């Protein structure tokens, strides 16, 4: 007798996500459905507007990876108009991206994902003195993990619990058997949860220095960057560097240490040792370094074969809407897709919580489409990014990955797990933070002889333009595609990381990374599906990003040829 479990809202993510699973009599998941329950129609809104406004509008797709769409949209227009932006603008954009990663990944791990690993209630029975000793196991110089501090954190949270009023901690799955930290380890991580609230504020300020504000910075324009005064101010530059030091310190001494701790504690926990069941990975190259090279490589890995990494060919991308709330007859290439919303609603059925409206798995059930590469589902994100670079023999990445594996005693296979996905995000943050300083130094050198930050774009209304940009956003590969006609936007399209990961099943019955990651997972208690939430959170869902519209009518594919290096 199989039972249906409904999880909506999936909290601690960006946006509105519904997950449903079916478990057998042993509480093992045999079917899963991922659904986004919000559609906003941003690309429809873009049509007919000036390309100069693209960046600011598409930025509003998401306030978490707030800079990614801004940059990607702006660069798509630049690509269409054939603009080469000045070197300073490239460096500044790269530094803003660095700032974003250092912010976004910290917030994700501690404030969005953290409570799947950390049992807050268990932390209350910890011995702070012992916990302070435990913290020394994972780093020589722990942050916010001295005995006094841990005691204060414990008392603060006790206040919550003793009143029976848990505020934001209320009614969660505390005590679930798949929480594996000892009370002392939980207390350390809880202390870091609170500390990270402070540190993320500093990380956000880093982006605001060159961006004007965070979220939604406002200093990129088609043709370059506007924050020339900040760039030329020594005090301002030092401000960035100083904040970078504070955040990088936390990344190394808390974030990294906590992941090592998690690898040790959860190394035998079955529910986090699966979760990578679509073994196809894709990433693009990003983060300009001083020499014009990229920090991360681009490529596709199929069937988990690290020896066979190939270049991305965008012409092999198609989107299927057979199970999404849109009308279309067959899988469409993004450039000639149509978008006609076709909402079919829910189906009433029995669930573990009684009768509920549920997803119609046989029909349509999500606002997210299903992108496929050569007809296959693909995972994107920090794990894919590191695997592609690792497979390419990228020295920085290979060294970092090998060092972590050595440190935790885990085999390479451990990367292909929920735990590995979470660890990859941390490693990516460490690498980005360290390499960002080199870019910063390159900027310092360059402004000695060059103060250019902008080239004026020109649009000829009698011409048609086509262009695209691909970047590696915090949640994975992101690409924007634009067609300009009569001086205004004719068509626009964003292919977003979470779309790759969260899409529903396709017409061939192939399921995407979210749904696949849950198959075979055993739940301790189907009415409290912590294991599901932990796995889904490891992808860092961003639903506002993933629901978008394709409206490229009658495009000749050849017009969108992309050179392998993504430029």
């Amino acid at each position, binding site marked *: 007798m199989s039972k249906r479990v409904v999880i909506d809202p999936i909290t601690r993510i960006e*946006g509105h996500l519904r997950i449903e699973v079916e478990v057998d009599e042993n509480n093992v998941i045999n079917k899963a459905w991922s659904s986004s*329950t919000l559609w906003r129609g941003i690309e429809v809104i873009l049509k007919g507007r000036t390309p100069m*406004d693209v960046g600011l509008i598409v930025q509003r797709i998401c306030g978490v990876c707030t800079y990614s769409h801004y940059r990607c949209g702006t660069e798509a227009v630049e690509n269409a108009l054939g603009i080469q932006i000045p070197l300073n603008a490239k460096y500044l954009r790269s530094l803003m991206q660095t700032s974003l990663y250092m912010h976004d990944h910290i917030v994700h791990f501690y404030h969005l994902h953290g409570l799947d690993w950390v049992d807050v209630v268990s932390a209350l029975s910890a011995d702070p003195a012992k916990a302070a000793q435990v913290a020394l196991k994972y780093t020589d110089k722990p942050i916010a993990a001295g005995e006094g501090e841990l005691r204060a954190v414990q008392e603060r949270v006790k206040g919550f619990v003793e009143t029976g009023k848990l505020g934001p901690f209320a009614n969660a799955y505390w005590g679930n058997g798949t929480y594996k930290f000892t009370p002392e380890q939980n207390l350390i991580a809880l202390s870091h949860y609170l500390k990270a609230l402070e540190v993320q504020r500093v990380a956000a300020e880093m982006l605001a*220095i060159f961006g004007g*504000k965070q979220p939604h910075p406002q200093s990129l324009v088609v043709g370059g960057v506007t924050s020339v005064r900040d760039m030329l101010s020594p005090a301002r530059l030092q401000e960035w560097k100083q904040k970078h030091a504070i955040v990088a310190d936390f990344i190394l001494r808390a974030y990294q240490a906590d992941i090592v701790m998690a690898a040790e504690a959860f190394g035998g926990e079955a529910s986090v040792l699966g979760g990578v069941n679509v073994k196809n990975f894709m990433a693009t190259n990003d983060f300009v370094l001083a020499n014009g090279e990229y920090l991360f490589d681009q490529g596709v890995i199929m069937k988990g074969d690290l020896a066979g990494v190939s270049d991305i060919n965008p012409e092999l991308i198609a989107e299927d809407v057979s199970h999404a709330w849109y009308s279309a007859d067959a899988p469409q290439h993004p450039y000639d897709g149509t978008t006609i919303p076709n909402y079919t609603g829910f189906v009433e059925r029995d669930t573990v919580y009684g009768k509920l409206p549920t997803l119609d798995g046989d029909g349509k059930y999500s606002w997210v489409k299903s992108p496929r590469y050569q007809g296959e589902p693909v995972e994107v994100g920090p794990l894919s990014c590191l695997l592609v670079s690792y497979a390419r023999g990228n020295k920085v990445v290979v060294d970092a990955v090998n060092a972590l594996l050595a440190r935790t005693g885990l085999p390479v296979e451990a990367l292909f797990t929920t735990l590995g996905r979470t660890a990859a995000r941390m490693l990516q943050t460490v690498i980005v933070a360290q390499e960002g300083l080199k870019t910063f130094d390159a900027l310092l050198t360059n402004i000695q002889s060059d103060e250019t930050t902008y080239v004026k774009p020109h649009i000829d209304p009698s011409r048609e333009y086509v262009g695209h940009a691909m970047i590696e956003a915090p949640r994975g590969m992101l690409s924007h595609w634009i067609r300009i006609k009569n001086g205004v936007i004719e068509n626009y399209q964003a292919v977003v990381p979470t779309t790759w990961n969260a899409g529903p099943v396709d017409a061939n019955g192939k399921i995407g990374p979210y749904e696949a990651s849950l198959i075979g997972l055993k739940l301790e208690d189907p009415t409290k599906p912590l294991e599901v939430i932990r796995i889904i959170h490891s992808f860092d869902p961003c639903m506002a990003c993933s629901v978008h519209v394709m409206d490229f009518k009658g495009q000749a594919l050849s017009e969108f040829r992309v050179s392998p290096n993504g430029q």
Partner: protein
Amino acid sequence: MDTHAALYEQGKARLDALRQFAPRQQQTLTEKLQQHGITRRDFMKWSAMVTGMLALPLPFSNLVAEAAELADRVPLIWLHMAECTGCSESLVRADTPNLDSLIFDHISLEYHETLMAAAGWQAEENLEHALETYKGRYLLAVEGAIPTANNGSFLTVGCKGHTGLEIIKHAAEGAAAIISVGTCASFGGVQAAYPNPTGAKGVHEVVSKPVINLGGCPPSEKNIVGTLMYFIMFGKLPALDMFNRPKWAYGARVHDNCERRGRFDAGEFVEEFGDHGAKEGYCLYKVGCKGPYTYNNCPTERFNHHTSWPVLAGHGCMGCSEPNFWDDMADFEKPLGRQLLHGLDATADTVGAVILSATVVGIGAHAVASIFAKPLEE
């Protein structure tokens, strides 16, 4: 209009009433502050700062301090609709080291999908429980627009598959006050831009209660926290402008307090990003600044702990706290010229017009105080 003395008395009475409720947290705020190494003096300084921000006389800072200490008596329910989570992110950035975020912890946060530990069925239980238990007392904050087309089916939340529209109407019924956080909840925002495919609307258009609109994409953390403080202190809405935005935050044009205002008066303009003027900090009007048409406190409060704001970063204001700005102010890097906004009387143009010797700038400097409607409660 309240005289300050009467307002002070009102505030005191309100706090006395709040004190009748049982505290919801073990620790008093004072104890929490001590734990975080924040002295009473720092705390009073912070209160004075908030008082100044709310445009109240200094004696009110005692009330602010007291209100902060009583904040845990006010349950806060925060709902996400058609949004991008930018406003929540802004709130999480609350500056003034530790303090605002402490206050935030200290407010009883009953429901907030981005931050709460519970998920799914249990999260929905939390919401239903809070709506029932604190009926008539909770503060409702909404982030995001309400999709109304197709019976609201473009957004559903929760296991029971309710539409955003149903949820908002239900939550509004028992709310003591409703705050629309950000331009989407206030006026529909980006998804309501032409052609508005989902029929997105601001909260005030779908509920039959007064709503405070905090325009901004996103609003600064200070405007969010300040608004919460005002409600806790006085138990009522602050004085609002014609778009129901708190006057203390949205009472002046960005242009009026801009750090580059002197450049405007002197006729020194950036002609192109990155030019000599851009390096010198000239006025950004000619590269599209919408400061003259936009009401907000960005120039004085800035963002991210006073780190910066768009004009400081060399980009003009885009008018993000104004209704319909995505359409009205579009082509953001071009000046608006003499276009009139919000149907303001054409005489507004002549009343405050500035004729510059060097450059004749066609700014409808709507220097007309009548833009402010009367405050709602008098």
